């Protein structure tokens, strides 16, 4: 390689690297339109200030088949939250039939279809519990974004850009329609344009997956000051259910010593 060619190569790598670095820098500074930012902040602040709240959800999930055909499944979901350390969740539908209890000390998940439950000790805040659920059990609480103490931080931590789409409807409710882009996801949120800036709809597009499946949640029946008793967050096992463990990323099962041992 001649000196000029060698220099050329260095220059190419150098410029490519500068371009890559500037691209990376762009990723770190999200471009969110002020109007979109304003409404996302308003919604997040409103949720963060609630002491107790509950909502119901109708969710739709794309399942992409091996031949590329997209099928839609749906579930009903209910969530009750008492900040900072209690969550009750209930889901039922095509892909779910379970109850979720977090009382500030333990999480219990009850699979109603199989009559099976598991209980684990957890950290003392909703935020820490959600991350622990992921880290140890590879489990994600659906719509967890609305449970964190600082929803705005959670929603924007990976955002590359955000735009204000317009005033659009969710059912009969007029909402601020916002659209955000991330590296792996695009997502849209519809925030009530009335006095209470509540989220009415969330749509996530998994754009890096084949055929770009979507998750859609219609959120209704908000109660922003429900009376929630401590009993709601504590699981009382019914008769005839069996206790098992959560699948744990860090706990290998003990191998059976000899096939057929009883």
């Amino acid at each position, binding site marked *: 390689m001649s000196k000029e060619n060698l220099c050329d190569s260095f220059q190419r790598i150098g410029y490519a*690297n500068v371009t890559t670095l500037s691209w990376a820098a762009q990723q770190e500074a999200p471009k969110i339109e002020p109007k979109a930012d304003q409404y996302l902040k308003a919604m997040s602040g409103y949720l963060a200030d609630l002491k107790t709240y509950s909502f119901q959800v109708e969710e739709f999930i794309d399942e992409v088949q091996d031949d590329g055909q997209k099928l839609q499944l749906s579930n009903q979901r209910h969530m009750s939250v008492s900040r900072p350390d209690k969550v009750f969740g209930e889901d039922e539908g095509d892909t779910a039939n379970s109850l979720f209890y977090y009382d500030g000390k333990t999480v219990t998940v009850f699979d109603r279809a199989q009559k099976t439950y598991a209980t684990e000790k957890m950290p003392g805040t909703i935020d820490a519990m959600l991350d622990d659920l992921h880290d140890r059990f590879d489990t994600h609480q659906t719509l967890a974004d609305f449970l964190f103490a600082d929803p705005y931080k959670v929603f924007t931590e990976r955002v590359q850009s955000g735009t204000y789409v317009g005033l659009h409807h969710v059912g009969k409710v007029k909402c601020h329609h916002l659209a955000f882009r991330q590296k792996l996801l695009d997502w849209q949120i519809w925030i009530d344009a009335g006095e209470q800036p509540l989220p009415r709809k969330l749509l996530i597009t998994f754009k890096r997956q084949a055929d770009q499946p979507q998750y859609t949640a219609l959120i209704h029946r908000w109660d922003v000051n429900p009376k929630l008793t401590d009993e709601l967050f504590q699981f009382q096992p019914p008769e005839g259910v069996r206790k098992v463990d959560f699948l744990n990323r860090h706990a290998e099962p003990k191998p059976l010593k000899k096939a057929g041992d009883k």
Partner: protein
Amino acid sequence: MTGRAAVRYGGVLFSVMKGEAIMRRIFLEMGTLVLGLATLVWSTAPISAQRGGRGGGGHAGGGNPGGGHTAAHIGSVHYGARAAPVHVEPAVRAGAVRSEHYAGLEHRGGYRNPYRDDYFRHFRPGYRSFLIGDASYYYYDDLPPDCQTVVSDGITYYLCDGVYYQPYLYGGQTVYMVVPTQ
């Protein structure tokens, strides 16, 4: 990521400046060469993770419950971008925007197979993988018919066609993990 980098290199070909002090630039570029190589190594790691997670034994999935090859249940921005450690892309079933936060963060190369070969051959189709430490375990959403219950060291197993299963809770559903034998 690699493809994107290649495109950028292509674009640079047209923007190389001519007639500058060559040797001075060599010193300048030496530094960026090191940085550039480091960037390339970093940026390809998630691709390797994806192959590692999906390639082990030719089985799909790396720890997300749900059918199809694109589970769509994440339901959260946060967790949609985090998903399982071997997933570069979030799974749809998590339903959380925040899931991207976890995606592709961890990378491990090969995974240990905890099962004996003669035992592994009895596994029926349809299993999914779940990583425990550096081992890739397999589980099913249900049991086959005609199982018997076996208790060993106080743990109840299901024995079906020579394969032992232990029930676990995973993502709100009961799954049946194949227990290795010695």
